[in-house]
């Protein structure tokens, strides 16, 4: 599955991408919300977006809202370095919000499967 990874920290983005690759997915990287919207417009095969929350200019939540406003209904997983409860309350429509830590390798596959199941159902 082609997944767009949005993170302003290139290393953090690569890290997420590496985990996704390990799961057999094909990650695509964007460094900010603007680039993400461009990639979404240009590439039709993207099936999911995984974005960092805290980015300069456009935050992960802004990106999510912009996507929905433009009618892009792809599953959206938000990553954050803080307590994920905050963004969850701020934007209840998010498919999932995850804490960025070293357990990402284990937690991400589960969440992706869960989100996909919900979207397909």
């Amino acid at each position: 599955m082609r997944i767009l990874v949005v993170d302003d920290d290139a290393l953090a983005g690569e890290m997420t991408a590496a985990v996704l690759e390990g799961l057999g997915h094909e990650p695509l990287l964007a460094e900010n919300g603007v680039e993400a919207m461009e990639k979404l417009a240009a590439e039709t095969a993207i099936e999911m977006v995984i974005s960092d929350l805290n980015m300069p200019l456009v935050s992960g939540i802004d990106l999510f809202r912009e996507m929905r406003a433009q009618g892009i209904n792809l599953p959206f997983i938000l990553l954050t370095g803080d307590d994920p409860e905050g963004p969850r309350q701020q934007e209840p429509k998010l498919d999932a919000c995850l804490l960025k830590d070293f357990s990402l390798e284990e937690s991400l596959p589960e969440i992706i499967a869960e989100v996909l199941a919900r979207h397909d159902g």
Partner: protein
Amino acid sequence: MNDRPSSVRNKIAQLRATFVEQLPGRLSDARCHFDAAKANPNDREAAASLHRFLHSIKGTGNSFGFKDLGAAAAQGEHLAGKLLENPVSVTPEFWLDLNECLSNMALCIEVLQDFGAAPSQGDRTATFEMPLDAGAVQEESNDKLIYVCEDESLQAEHLGEQLRCFGYQAVLFNNTEDFRRAVLEEQPAAAIMDIMFPEGDSAGANVLIDLRNNHGKLFPTVFISGRRDFNARLRAIRAGGEAYFPKPVKAMDLVVTLDLLTRQSEPEPFRVLVVDDEPEIAQYHSLILENAGMATQVVHDPECVLDVVGEFRPDLVLMDMYMPKCSGREAAKLIRQIPDFVGLPIVFLSSETDTKKQFSAMTVGAEGFLTKPIQPEDLVTEVALRAERMRTLRALMARDSLTGLFNHTTTTQLLENSLTAARRQDGQLSFAMIDLDRFKAVNDTYGHPTGDQVLLALARVLQQRLRNSDLVGRYGGEEFAVILNDASLEKAKQIMEHLREDFSKVVFNVGDAKFSCTFSCGVASFPHAGDAENIREAADKALYQAKHAGRNRVVAYE
């Protein structure tokens, strides 16, 4: 789809390494923002840059599993957030706090660079899997319980893994509260404790002070810390720390310290040999030392010194300088001629006050020179100090540096001691010699680091599966020896058969390749074979037979 998990792990390892590599540069940029913001708290751009930096390090640091660094950055992020919100409100203390956060981060970065950011399993390093179904040969093996409290989970796991190889049962905690609760439930034989935790800069020391003062829980503790400064060490000592290791910690050093700290029985009394031609003086000195809890033996005739040294195995010799038949100098020289006693401390006792003559005594390798008459408490202090140092040195010298097992010399010595005990108690004893099969091929095919992994794995199997009373040594390159106290030839053969089977099930992974190793073993027993040399030769012959019969088998010398 075409990426294997191992290549992903490799990639993550590379990303971690890159991240750590970039940290010092990024931190120095942050320092510039800090200085700019401090000079002008209304410099929004500097404050925002600093905040973004701290936030990013927190997130990415945690993503890579660097919790200490993440925690320090989180604290800084919180402070920088305040600065962004309300630049007018900041006080001089604020800058001190923020500065400390950056300093803590610098320390964490230093540790990460020392420790190496790569996770423990690289692609080329051999790892091994132990078969889970292989139970202990002896159920009674009761490993000493060690609590490891360290919030950097990767480091803790690495340490725990190593300690387990050396026969310690390591239980890991990543925060002080869990540790506290566990101690109240079951007290460990010793603890290994980090100092700095997210819950406080000296949370590690504080929890121990609390356990001691409020719950009467006292156990030996070794502190490990990324901090090398005096204050951190001082706090550790005040909390009752027995030892302090700056990170990165070498597992071998830690094991030697733990061995000393967790000796189950009371430490054996120091053994002192008193050599003096005047019986009254010898008795007098020996009495003083025995009153201080030491074991002594007295020799009046220097001719007997060598025999007694061999039998009594003293930690130290207290020798009179002037004796009729041969002088103390000569007696010391005699002792030193025997390789086993080269390191034995000899302290001269004499009324000689001429420093020139004292100096000449030192040239034959005397540890010290005491002048008669000596105050009893001075004698005790001088002797205890040197005997203690000798013991520590011996513990370090007694072990093989790769496997942590007893080395050749020590193993030989232990065999002799065990034989003496068996003879005295009319008991039995078995001795097994082990040699890895086709070990050279392993080194040639996979390289020496992999060969070392095989040696470590065998050492681990032997230690884990044997009884506490059994002694395991590395006899030479790929040769190991086991002393099975109080075991008949039949019983010993049976035990070694189990071990042989267990070890042959260990799977070694190098890159994509997998292989297994086997060993051959020869067993001999007392009283069947008489002295140490005898029993060793017999075991060696049996080992030779095992090799010639096709390897991977245990042969008993009948």
